[in-house]
């Protein structure tokens, strides 16, 4: 990997705890894919070898929210489904982050009707919105790198219960 040569003869590194913890967190996000609609095809492309989100450390989809710290909501969320999404979010342990993938998850998309939630930010708090119908994998990476920048800039107490885990209505 090259790190052996770079650190040859170095026994220890001094850094700030906040910086180091955030650095570790942003490169090992365990995602929970909440995939509901056609954006899922582009999500699959993002995850598979040609584009490969694993290069950014978010490799493992965990199909239980209790093992995930990164909720990625892909596709249209209907009012019928909204309680499920909120429950999934509430089951995730701290620290946790949320990305809205695509136009529907971000704003309801063109589904301005009785069935569709007009953006998942009405159900759970969101960190990054990725527009597009669907977004190309490059856009997803851009959004993901913005999330990494957010994580790197966080203070250590960002993820206290008072600060981040509010009791949702």
């Amino acid at each position, binding site marked *: 990997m090259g790190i052996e040569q770079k650190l040859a003869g170095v026994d220890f590194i001094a850094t700030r705890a906040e910086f180091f913890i955030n*650095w570790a967190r942003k490169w090992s996000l365990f995602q929970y894919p909440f995939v509901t609609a056609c954006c899922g095809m582009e999500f699959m492309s993002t995850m598979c070898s040609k584009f490969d989100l694993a290069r950014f450390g978010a490799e493992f989809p965990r199909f239980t929210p209790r093992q995930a710290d990164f909720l990625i909501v892909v596709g249209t969320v209907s*009012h*019928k489904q*909204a*309680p499920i999404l*909120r429950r999934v979010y509430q089951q995730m342990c701290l620290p946790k*982050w*949320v990305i809205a993938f695509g136009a529907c998850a971000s704003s309801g998309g063109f589904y*301005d*009707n*009785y*069935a569709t*939630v*007009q953006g998942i*930010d*009405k*159900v*759970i*708090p*969101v*960190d990054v919105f990725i527009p597009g119908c669907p977004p190309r994998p490059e856009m997803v990476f851009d959004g993901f*790198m*913005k999330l*990494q*920048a*957010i994580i*790197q*800039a*966080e*203070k250590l107490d*960002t993820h206290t219960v008072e*600060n*981040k885990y*509010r009791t*949702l*209505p």
Partner: protein
Amino acid sequence: MSMETIDLLKERFADAVEETHNFRSDHTARVKREAWLPVATFLRNEAGFDMWIDLTAADYQGREEGLPRFEVICHLRRMKDGARIRIKARLPESDPSIDTLKTLWKGADWMERECHEMYGIDFKGHGDQRPLLLYAEFVGFPLRKDYPIGRRQPRIPLLGSEERRFSRPEDETPHGHLPEDKNNG
């Protein structure tokens, strides 16, 4: 072939068939709603329309004075030769009910449930008109023309605008201009 079916229908249910047309093999017969079940029974058992394709409704609210508000539309297909037929029936707003066809084609079950929750059509004899796609708390019929387009019926309280993002009081940077992350490359 299908034209024959329409002719047969006209002959057999002379009083019930109100209108027929045939546009490029798209055969349609509009029947009185009292004849809905007998006509369907005839089509299935004698004319050989064994495949259930679709059932839906249309809301013609305010289209024409004196016109019944709803129309139920059913599409059938005969597997033997691929013939199709469409039958329709008009229902007044005061009593939007019609006989179920669930007894003839099992596939009618869910489509009638959907039609019931979306348009409020009552399928007599169906017996199980629970919501199929909507949820039990939903009030009203969303595909009717008089359902307000902006009405939402959330099942859980939604977040206000101030709660929708993670609070980062320490983060003064406006959205979209995130701090440069030097370790990202």
